[in-house]
């Protein structure tokens, strides 16, 4: 039996162009639709696979932000057992501040810890001052392994052998005692799909616990001076025209280099 805690983070959906707010230091909320961070999708999937293999439970935790209920009920519909949202935390863009608040919540709210494994995505597209996994591991004084793509748990010895990705397809394996924090790069299978009808059913049958974050937020140890959008038109020569015209131009480029 394994009790697994999965930390879920919502990030802007990059299918929509993020715009910078008039203060120049944050994103314009009107330009942003929040979705579950892609790596966290994999962390959740890995947790569900481990539960199927060993039994136990999957508890999901997220900060209370817009769209969080959709994300949490979707995870419940996929097979998570309990969902918590932590309210009253506005960490701005600081992962350090969010991690501090999460650590206080996990250690003070009954029912969240102990967990055998704490899984989270290895990184998120808005990590400004660090990834949540190692920071939380440090604050909870637990071992951490990141860029994880496979987890084999031995419940008897209370250890796990985890596989970490390096460059060029090389992997390394590490043995960690439980409990441990793991930053997941990819689950062993693609994240499962859940039909909307099942999510609606979860919304009726299951509930999301809401808990206020204990303690005061510390202030971030960095100051955002300015956000900018990098000039992307700087380099590429843009090819214009109907598909056939573009295709002809591409073929000319290849032919000029002896590639066609």
């Amino acid at each position, binding site marked *: 039996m394994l009790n697994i805690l999965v930390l879920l983070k919502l990030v802007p959906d*990059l299918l929509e*162009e*993020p715009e910078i707010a008039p203060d120049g230091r944050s994103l314009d909320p009107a330009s942003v639709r929040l979705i579950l961070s892609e790596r966290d999708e994999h962390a959740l999937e890995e947790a569900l696979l481990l539960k199927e293999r060993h039994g136990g439970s999957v508890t999901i935790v997220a900060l209370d932000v817009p769209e969080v209920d959709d994300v949490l009920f979707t995870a419940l519909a996929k097979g998570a057992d309990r969902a918590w949202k932590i309210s009253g935390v506005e960490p701005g*863009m600081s*992962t*350090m501040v969010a991690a501090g608040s999460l650590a206080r919540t996990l250690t003070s709210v009954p029912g969240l810890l102990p967990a055998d494994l704490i899984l989270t995505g290895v990184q998120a*597209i*808005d*990590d*400004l*001052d*660090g*990834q949540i*996994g190692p*920071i939380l*591991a440090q604050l909870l004084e637990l*071992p*951490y392994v*990141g860029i994880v793509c496979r987890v084999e748990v031995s419940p008897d010895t209370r250890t796990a052998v985890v*596989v*970490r*990705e*390096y*460059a*060029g*397809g*090389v992997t*390394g*394996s*590490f*043995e*960690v*005692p439980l409990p441990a924090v793991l930053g997941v790069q*990819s689950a062993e*299978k*693609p994240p499962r799909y859940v039909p909307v009808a099942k999510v609606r059913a979860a919304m009726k049958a299951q509930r999301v616990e809401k808990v206020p974050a204990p303690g005061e937020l510390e202030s971030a*140890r*960095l*100051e*955002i*001076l*300015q*956000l*900018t959008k*990098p000039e*992307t038109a*700087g*380099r*590429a*020569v*843009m090819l214009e025209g109907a*598909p*056939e015209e*573009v*295709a002809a131009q591409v*073929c000319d480029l*290849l032919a000029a*280099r002896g*590639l*066609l």
Partner: protein
Amino acid sequence: MAGDIWVLVEQWRGRVSDVTYEVLALGREVAAAAGAGLQAVLLGSGAGEALPSLGAADGVLVAAHAALAEPDPNLYAQALAQMIPQRQPRALFIPQTNVTMEVGPLLAARLGLPFVNSCRDISIADGRLTARCVLYGGKVEAAVAPRGGPAVLGILPGARPQEPGRVERTPPTTAVSVDLPAEPRVRFHGYTEPPPGDVDITRENVLVSVGRGIQRGENVALAEELAGALGGAVCGSRPVIDQGWLSSSRQVGTSGMIVKPQVYLALGISGAPEHVEGMKHAALIIAINSDPRAPIFSVAHYGVGADLFDIVPALIERVKAVRQKAAS
């Protein structure tokens, strides 16, 4: 000395990684602007053969300990946490790769220091250190100033060319003793080489690469048809591999392969930094993406701001026609 710029030397499988020299080149610039010295920090089981290539630094702090034989981020952070408080550098630059990614966050959380992730540049103006870091898959950059210090900064590959940072000279060394557990909690078992793939994409002249924009697994066939017509191979970015649409031997990027083909056709790839790092040295990069503001267009030589499903079929037809004409 207090106020120096430190650069962590990244070593993996017995060799100093190229990104270390890039970060040394950046560190040299920042140290000059700060009027400070540049120290390389070498952690490992022995002094190592790395020293003679670290001449860009004014000196090397060497912490030798049996537990540092493999780059375990937990132990790296513990070792650095013992070196920093007493010596008080201005900043510690850490190459941000799959080997060292979490060293900075672990260290900063341990000592209560500011940390900045994914930096592509560091500057000092009016005595203030400013980091420029990449967010949202390269769609936004943030200029941030650490409060207090020493500042711990994760530096992305490619921040500077490596040549100025690779100087053949053995700098003066300072041995530092660190106290590390004899039985670390995380135990390294070993490395595994990737299974041999059906093709070695690092040896192909023509690569047709697909990203999230390919939308469905069955659509990869379109890229395969184009690659077939061009006499090349198909590869992809992370999301495509994660979905199981291509095998991991076809992955381009920091955790996959670094490729340098004659031509790299990027179909529906947004151009996240970890992908760009794997293909930016291709001789010719042509990107097709429906989002005209996709970061891939800042690395591509030629771009098409259109739906790949409109362009690629026309391109296949054209390539086949040219080939047929040449054959007849």
